[in-house]
């Protein structure tokens, strides 16, 4: 992520959209710092998007979120100029699309930017496969070639076999898959998704979100996702831009938005968010005390006494988790001259760092020792301590790791366990 984030896919600079008649006067008033409602009163013009500046990194999911009327749909339509900005610059791979001719713009729309719409916008008189290949059809791709790509694209969204149906024969969720397949068939760099899942019911929406994340990690395209649903934004966004009255009030990662709202509006917006669904094990894990397996039980006992804990994690030389030893077992081992390996408890509760807190409750509540957080190659990353879990849920910042820095386990907390 860090290497990629250097490359900016889209850069939007001081872009404004004014709807209505006295556009010039309205822009002038905007420069003077007048508010949206003042301008409406003075000129009758509506400010849709007000002086926004942001950039989108290559390969990220950038969510633009706001309530209805906040200008998010207008903003996303300016990115492919379905709506022309009144003033401003929109650089796509360094080229200003605002200055492009009709032909250049058409080329960008055909090759670089795909779009998925809230109400699917499928063509009712075309079959699913005809819908999917539409983008290629208008580029003049030969029929058999575009059909192959369209079928591939439909397979990608799990709709193989539906090629010859008509849109009205499909459920909403399936229709939106077609919308997605249609956008993907052109193989664009950027996918604009305007409230793409808002018309779907909650369960289907969640499935689609998961599939979108899967697609995103498979294809590495840049997604710009519009939503009014904060949970959705937090779930799928690498970064989120929060809009209000045509302005961007905060841009940041989901954690930044949740943990340090930039103003009262954002704070009010995020106060009802269920932290347990957003924070993951990575955010609350603490550094674990470990002992290498080739040390004896006596060393383990001494370490536990020093730290004031009743059990300790055992790792091999490359920090791979092997299990844990309790103080009792260590005492018994040292008396009978056994090695640590003989008394190790190996069926420990283990989780991955991406597990959200809601899925942690069960494991943490039944475990007799802190739950271990391990990486894919079995390395011990940290542990989850009950007190920290509860503290994090209450929104207390001191229990949440910022930027993945793991603090050592708190002595008092580990004693409780």
């Amino acid at each position, binding site marked *: 992520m860090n290497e990629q984030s250097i490359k900016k896919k889209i850069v939007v600079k001081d872009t404004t959209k004014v709807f209505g008649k006295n556009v010039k006067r309205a822009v002038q008033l905007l420069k003077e710092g007048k508010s949206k409602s003042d301008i409406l009163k003075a000129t009758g013009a509506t400010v849709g998007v007000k002086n926004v500046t942001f950039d989108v990194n290559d390969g990220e999911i950038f969510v633009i979120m706001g309530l209805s009327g906040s200008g998010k749909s207008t903003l996303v339509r300016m990115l492919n100029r*379905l709506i022309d900005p009144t003033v401003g610059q929109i650089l796509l791979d360094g080229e200003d699309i605002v200055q492009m001719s009709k032909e250049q713009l058409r*080329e960008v729309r*055909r090759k670089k930017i795909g779009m998925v*719409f809230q*109400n699917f916008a499928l063509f009712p008189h075309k079959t699913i496969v005809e819908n999917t290949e539409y983008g290629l059809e*208008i580029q003049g791709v030969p029929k058999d070639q575009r059909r192959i790509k369209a079928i591939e694209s439909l397979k990608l969204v799990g709709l193989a076999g539906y090629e010859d149906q*008509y849109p009205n024969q499909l459920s909403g969720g399936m229709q939106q898959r077609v919308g997605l397949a249609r956008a993907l068939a052109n193989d664009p760099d950027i996918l*604009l998704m305007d409230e793409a899942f808002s018309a779907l019911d909650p369960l289907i929406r969640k499935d689609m979100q998961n599939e979108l994340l899967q697609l995103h990690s498979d294809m590495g395209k840049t997604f710009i996702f519009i939503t009014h649903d904060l949970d959705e934004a937090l779930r799928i966004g690498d970064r989120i831009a929060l809009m209000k009255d045509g302005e961007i009030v905060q841009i940041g990662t989901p954690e930044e938005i949740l943990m340090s709202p930039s103003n009262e509006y954002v704070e009010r917006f995020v106060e009802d968010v269920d932290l347990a669904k957003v924070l993951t094990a990575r955010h609350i894990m603490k550094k674990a005390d470990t002992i290498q397996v080739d040390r004896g039980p006596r060393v383990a006992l001494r370490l536990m006494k020093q730290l004031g804990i009743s059990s300790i994690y055992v790792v091999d030389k490359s920090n791979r988790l092997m299990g844990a030893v309790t103080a009792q077992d260590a005492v018994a081992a040292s008396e009978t001259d056994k090695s640590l390996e003989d008394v190790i408890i190996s069926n420990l509760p283990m989780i991955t760092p991406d597990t959200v807190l809601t899925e942690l409750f069960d494991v943490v509540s039944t475990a007799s020792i802190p739950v271990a957080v391990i990486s894919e190659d079995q390395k011990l990353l940290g542990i989850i301590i009950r007190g920290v879990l509860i503290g994090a849920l209450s929104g207390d910042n001191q229990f949440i790791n910022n930027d993945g820095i793991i603090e050592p386990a708190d002595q008092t907390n580990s004693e409780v366990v």
Partner: protein
Amino acid sequence: MNELLPRLPFADWIDSGVDWLVSTFGSVLDGIADVLGGVVEGAVTVLDMVPSILLAIIFALLAYFISTRKIALFTLVGLLFIDYLGYWYPMLQMLALVLTSVFLAVVIGIPIGIWGSQKASVRKVVNPLLDLMQTMPAFVYLIPAIFFFNIGVVPGVVASVIFAMPPTIRLTMLGIEQVPKDLIEATEAFGSTTGQRLLKIQIPLAKPTIMAGVNQSIMLALSMVVIASMVGAPGLGEEVYRSVTQLKTGVGVETGVSIVIVAIILDRITQQAGTRKKKIGGKLS
């Protein structure tokens, strides 16, 4: 009022305008008249070469494939009934006149409708003209039409075209404008040209509405046949007109009913043509 303001000689102006047109474009107008007259007469000749029973069966089959079995049966019985009454040839003359007029109304009307749907400025000119064409008493078209094209079937065709064209234009514009905005956005977002947007999305989706316009145009053209017969257009209309002048109620009813039968057949067949595509789409499920 008349004492305060001088009476402007509108009528004189228009008369001299028509005279000027006739004298300037006389040969062009004669050419048009020859072509139109030839087309109508040719159509009558061709239709008349087919035996009436066979033609009735052909029309019934056409109705069966486009529309329902009920309409097909009605077509067969209705046409044979007209033949039985002895109005077969006038019916063919009327049919040729109506179909020629509608063909011209559609060929001119749909492009104007498409043009109007794309440009607000065109709409601003076309809409009031359409109002004028529809509200002006149809007889008024006949007078200059006689000057331009003499007496006979041609002024009848011209007057019918003018009278029948507005619904096709209006409903073409309406149909294209009614294509949902998000579909237009989708075509734009994928980089369609204006032509691609029109041909691949807007016109196909507007087709049922456009066909409703064509259907209306056919009905209006049919309603013109009696009026057209006043300038000498032959056909069932002529029979009706004659029965009116001679106060023959029986003949009037017979010919009137014949026109109604043809009207119903044309109406049902063209109504179905507009919705046909959807039925096929549904059947695939």
